[in-house]
C-alpha cells in the first residue's frame, strides 16, 4: 500500500518534522518495501500482511506508530448525525451487511474541481482522480480504511436493497464489463435490478459523473467471506473488495460518512441531506470479545521479562482495553482487530512494539536423538557417482502430457487437475523421461559428453487412487570417457562403463539378462540384483524414445530403486593367506551363444581346489582364423592355498578339471 509520509505525520501529534519512521514501520511488521521522494514528501510502499486489515489506512498505520511514539493519535473531525432527518427505506440482509449507513445529498455541484491537496494525495497513493465526490470518498477511504460507494440518486429506482442476487441477473459495471450474477453473490439493488456487486464494484448506469446532482453515498460493513467469494468468482479485485475481504472496522461506517460530509461542506454548501443507518444487535463476532492472558505468558513465550507498564501502555495505544488482575491481563479487543483471537496474538502485539531485534538470541544445541534420520538414503551413492564423474541433475516432477504413454499404463499415470501448462501436466511414473529430456537439452547445446544422475521420486497411481511415491536413483552416460584425455586415449562410452560405475558404488550386485522393462531396448538390457532381489535396471533406451526426444547420440541408462537396496552392514573379516598366488590363463573357442556369466557361474559353482578368483580377461569375435559363430575367450584363474605354497602340479590338476568341465558343458576347444 502506497502512502504519503507527510499525510501520515498529521495524525501523530508532537512528531518532529524530520522524523522518518521507516525503520519503525518495518520493525512493527509494516514492511516498507520502497520509498520515493516526491517534492517535499516521501511516498512509501508498505507490504501489508493479510492479517493486518486494520492498517489499510493512514489512521491504522498511525495507530501502530503511536504505540512506539507513545502519543495518542488525533482522529480527523467528522460531522455527527445526531438526529436522522430523513428515513430512507433500507432493506438489508444482515448476513451480508450487519451495519449499513447511507447518506443522500441533494443539489450538489459535482462539477467542482477536486481540492488540490486531495488530488495530490490520491495521486501519491496511486489512486486516479475521477470527480469531486468520488475523490473525497476515496480520500476518506485512504484515511480511515472505509470503502464507500456513490450512486446517482436520479438513476437509482426507489429504495436501497442489500440482498443476494438472483440467478442470471445481469449488470454492466463501472469497468465496462457485463457480469452475470448468481444467487450467492451479494448485491446492492434498487427496486428493479442490482446497481452494485456489494463491496466490489458499482454499475455503470448509476455511477456518479460531474453532472450528477443528487447522490446516495453508501458506507457499510460487509461480511468478509462473501466479498472474497464475489471477488474470486469474478476475478476482480478493487480497492474496496481488497479491504472488505480482509475486514473493515464494522463500527466506523457512520463516522466515515460523517467525515465525508465534513470535507464536502468545507468546499461547497450542502443544504439538503438525509442519513440513515441500520445495524444488527451484534455487528461482528470479535467486537467486545475479551481475552485473558496468563501473567507468565509474555515471559515464557518471549524469553524476557517485559514490565506490566509496557504491556498495558502498548495495548492501550493499539486500541485494546487491557486490565491487570491477579489472573493476568484481561484484554478487550477493539472492533478494528479481526486478527486477534487468542492470548498468543497479544504476545505478538507486545513483542512487535518492543522490537523483535531487542530480544537476545540464545543458541540451544541440545540433541534429542529420539527420531531416525530418514532423508539421507541417497547421500552415499550420490557422492560415489560424483567421484566417478557424474553431474547431479534435478528435474521437474511433472512431465509433458503423453510423454510416458508408451511405458506407463494410462490408469497408473497421476495427472494434475490444474496443471500450469500442458508440458507440466503429468507426474512422472519413471525417471527415464527426465533423464532423456536432460540429455536432449544438453545435446542441443553441444554438451555431447554426459554422465548425469538424478535422485528423485516417481509417482504411480494405484487402484485405490492413492499415489505411491518411490525413491529412484537414475542416470545416463553418453559420449567419450573424458574430454581431458589425449586423442588416442579417448574411448567411446559403452554399456560396460555404466556397469563398471554401478559395480563401483554397489560392489555386491549382479547383472542378469532378461529384464522386462519397456523403455529399455531388448538388445542391451540388464536387470540389477542384490541378494537375488531386483533393485534396478540398466541398458540402452528403447529406439522409439530416441526419436521421441530427437536424440542421435547413443545413451546408456540406469535406475536403482533406492529403498530396495540393502547397504552392506554386517561383514566379517576373512584371514588373508600369506602364501603366493599362482595365475593361469586359459583361452578357449566357444559358441557365440554362450555368455560370459554361463562360464564363470559354471566354474564358480564347482568350487575347484585352491581357486580364489576366475574372470574373463579377453574376448575376440569372428577373427579370420575362427569359425563364424564362435568366439575366443580368455579366462584368468588365480590359485592360492591357505596353509602352504602351492606346487605347479597341484594347480595343473585343477586346470585339467576345469578344461574338462568347459569341454563337456560348452563344447569348448582349448587354444594353445
Amino acid at each position, binding site marked *: 500500500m502506497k502512502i504519503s509520509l507527510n499525510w501520515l505525520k498529521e495524525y501523530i501529534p508532537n512528531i518532529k518534522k524530520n522524523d522518518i519512521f521507516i525503520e519503525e514501520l518495518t520493525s512493527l511488521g509494516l514492511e516498507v518495501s520502497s520509498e520515493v521522494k516526491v517534492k517535499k514528501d516521501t511516498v512509501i510502499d508498505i507490504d501489508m500482511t493479510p492479517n493486518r486489515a486494520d492498517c489499510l489506512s493512514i489512521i491504522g498505520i498511525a495507530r501502530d506508530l503511536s504505540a512506539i511514539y507513545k502519543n495518542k493519535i488525533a482522529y480527523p473531525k467528522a460531522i455527527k448525525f445526531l438526529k436522522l432527518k430523513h428515513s430512507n427505506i433500507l432493506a438489508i440482509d444482515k448476513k451480508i451487511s450487519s451495519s449499513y449507513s447511507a447518506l443522500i445529498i441533494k443539489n450538489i455541484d459535482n462539477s467542482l474541481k477536486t481540492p488540490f491537496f486531495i488530488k495530490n494525495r490520491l495521486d501519491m497513493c496511486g489512486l486516479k482522480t475521477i470527480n469531486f465526490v468520488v475523490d473525497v470518498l476515496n480520500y476518506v477511504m485512504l484515511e480511515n480504511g472505509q470503502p464507500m460507494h456513490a450512486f446517482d440518486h436520479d438513476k437509482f429506482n426507489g429504495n436501497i436493497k442489500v440482498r443476494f442476487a438472483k440467478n442470471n441477473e445481469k449488470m454492466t459495471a463501472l469497468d465496462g464489463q457485463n457480469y452475470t450474477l448468481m444467487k450467492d453473490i451479494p448485491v446492492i439493488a434498487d427496486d428493479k435490478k442490482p446497481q452494485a456487486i456489494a463491496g466490489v464494484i458499482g454499475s455503470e448506469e448509476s455511477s456518479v459523473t460531474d453532472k450528477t446532482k443528487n447522490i446516495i453515498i453508501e458506507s457499510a460493513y460487509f461480511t468478509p467471506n462473501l466479498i472474497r467469494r464475489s471477488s474470486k468468482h469474478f476475478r476482480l479485485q478493487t480497492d474496496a473488495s481488497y479491504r472488505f475481504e480482509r475486514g473493515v472496522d464494522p463500527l466506523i461506517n457512520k463516522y466515515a460518512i460523517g467525515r465525508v460530509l465534513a470535507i464536502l461542506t468545507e468546499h461547497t454548501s450542502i443544504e439538503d441531506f438525509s442519513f440513515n443507518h441500520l445495524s444488527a444487535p451484534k455487528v461482528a463476532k470479535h467486537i467486545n470479545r475479551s481475552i485473558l492472558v496468563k501473567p507468565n505468558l509474555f515471559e515464557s513465550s518471549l*524469553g524476557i521479562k517485559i514490565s506490566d507498564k509496557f504491556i498495558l501502555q502498548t495495548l492501550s495505544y493499539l486500541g485494546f482495553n487491557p486490565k491487570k488482575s491477579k489472573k493476568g491481563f484481561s484484554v478487550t479487543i477493539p472492533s478494528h482487530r479481526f486478527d486477534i483471537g487468542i492470548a498468543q496474538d497479544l504476545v505478538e502485539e507486545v513483542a512487535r512494539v518492543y522490537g523483535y531485534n531487542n530480544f537476545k538470541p540464545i543458541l540451544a544445541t541440545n540433541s534429542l536423538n529420539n527420531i531416525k534420520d530418514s532423508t539421507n538414503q541417497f547421500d552415499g551413492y550420490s557422492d560415489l557417482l560424483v567421484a566417478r564423474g557424474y553431474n547431479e541433475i*534435478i528435474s521437474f516432477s511433472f512431465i509433458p502430457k503423453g510423454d510416458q504413454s508408451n511405458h506407463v499404463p494410462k490408469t497408473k499415470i*497421476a495427472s494434475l*487437475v490444474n496443471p500450469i501448462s500442458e508440458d507440466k501436466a503429468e507426474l512422472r511414473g519413471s525417471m527415464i523421461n527426465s533423464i532423456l529430456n536432460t540429455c536432449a537439452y544438453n545435446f542441443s547445446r553441444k554438451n555431447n559428453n554426459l554422465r548425469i544422475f538424478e535422485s528423485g521420486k516417481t509417482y504411480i497411481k494405484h487402484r485405490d487412487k492413492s499415489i505411491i511415491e518411490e525413491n529412484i536413483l537414475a542416470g545416463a552416460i553418453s559420449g567419450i570417457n573424458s574430454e581431458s584425455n589425449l586423442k588416442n586415449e579417448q574411448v567411446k562410452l559403452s554399456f560396460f562403463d555404466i556397469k563398471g560405475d554401478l559395480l563401483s558404488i554397489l560392489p555386491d550386485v549382479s547383472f542378469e539378462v532378461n529384464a522386462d522393462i519397456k523403455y529399455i531396448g531388448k538388445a542391451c538390457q540388464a536387470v540389477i540384483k542384490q541378494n537375488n532381489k531386483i533393485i534396478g535396471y540398466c541398458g540402452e533406451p528403447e529406439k522409439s524414445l530416441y526419436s521421441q526426444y530427437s536424440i542421435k547420440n547413443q545413451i546408456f541408462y540406469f535406475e536403482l530403486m533406492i529403498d530396495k537396496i540393502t547397504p552392506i552392514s554386517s561383514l566379517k573379516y576373512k584371514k588373508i593367506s600369506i602364501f603366493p598366488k599362482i595365475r593361469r590363463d586359459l583361452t578357449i573357442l566357444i559358441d557365440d551363444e554362450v555368455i560370459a556369466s554361463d562360464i564363470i557361474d559354471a566354474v564358480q559353482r564347482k568350487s575347484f581346489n585352491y581357486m580364489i578368483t576366475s574372470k574373463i580377461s579377453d574376448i575376440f569375435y569372428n577373427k579370420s582364423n575362427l569359425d563364424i559363430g564362435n568366439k575366443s575367450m580368455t579366462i584368468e584363474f588365480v590359485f592360492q592355498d591357505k596353509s602352504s605354497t602351492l606346487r605347479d602340479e597341484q594347480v595343473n590338476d585343477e586346470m585339467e578339471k576345469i578344461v574338462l568341465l568347459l569341454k563337456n558343458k560348452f563344447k569348448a576347444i582349448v587354444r594353445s
Partner: protein
Amino acid sequence: MPKDHTSLISDLEEKLKECSSSHDIANIKSQYLGKSGIITNKFGSLKDAALDERKELGRSLNILKTQIQNLIAAKLIEIQDVKNDNKVDITLPGKNISTGSKHPVSITINGITSILAKYGFTSVSGVEVEDEFHNFEALNIPETHPARDMHDTFYVSDDKLLRTHTSSVQIRSMLSNKAPLKIMTPGKVYRCDSDPTHSPMFHQIEGLYIDKNVNFCHLKGVLISFITEFFGKDMEIRFRPSYFPFTEPSAELDIKFKGKWLEVLGCGMVHPNVLSNVKIDTKKYSGFAFGLGIERLAMLKYDIVDLRMFYENDISFLSQFKGLK
C-alpha cells in the same frame, strides 16, 4: 656426529652442486671413496686410535661413508634423469578427469542440514502427494486463506494435492513422535506459479523444535548462528513481525545483501492451535519453527540470477559446482 664429519658433508654438498656431468661426479667419488680418498684414509688411520675409542670411531665412520655414498648416488640419478630425457612434462593434461558435481540445490541442502545437525536437528522426509489435513487444516490454515486457492495449489485429485510446503512433514512427525521434537525437513514443494522468480517446483527446508520452555530468544539464537555459519561471515540480520497462520508471534528474517534488505526466511513460535491439532499439550510444551527456500539461498550464495538455471540442467552450469559437497 663429530664436527669434522659435519663439515665434510657440507663440503661435499657444495661440491656436488657444482657438478653437471657424471664425469664430475666420478671425480668427486674417487676424491672421497677412492683408493686414497678421504674416507678410505680415515678408515686406514683407525688402527692409530686408542683401543677403547676404535669401536665408536669405526661406527661413526661407517655412518659417514653411507651418507656420502647416498649423496653421490642421488646426484648421479638426478643428472642421468635429465640427460636421459626421462623428465616428464607434467603440464600435459591429466587422464580421465571427471567433472562430476552435485547439484547446487543438493549442495545448499547439505550445507544447511550439516549446520542444523550440529544444533541438534534430525533430518526427516515425507510424502509429496499430501491431503488437505496435513498440508492445510492441521497447520491452522483456514479455508479462506490465500494458500488454499486452486490458484496456488496443484491438485492430483479432489482430495490429494502436491504439498505446498514441507510443514506437512512436521505435522506427520509431531503426530507420530509427539513432544519433545527437534527436526528439519528438506524437500521438494510445489506451487502453481511460474515466472522468472517463481518455479512450480522448488525446494524448502523447515526446522521445528518443540520442548519445555522454548521461547522466542531460542528461535533467534538458532537462526542468527545458522545464517552466520551458512554465509561464512557476520551478516547484518534483522527480524521483523510477519504473518503465518501456523506461528504466533511470526517473524521474517532479512539479511543485508549488497546494501539492500532481503527476506530469507519465515519463522515464529508454533501456533497453539497447531500443537492442539497434533495433540501436544500446550500447557507443557512450546516450540518454534522456521522455513526457507533453498533456491533463494543458493542464488544469494552463488550469485545466480535466473531461477530457471536450476532445472535446465545444463552441464556447463552444473559442472561449475564441482568440488562442492
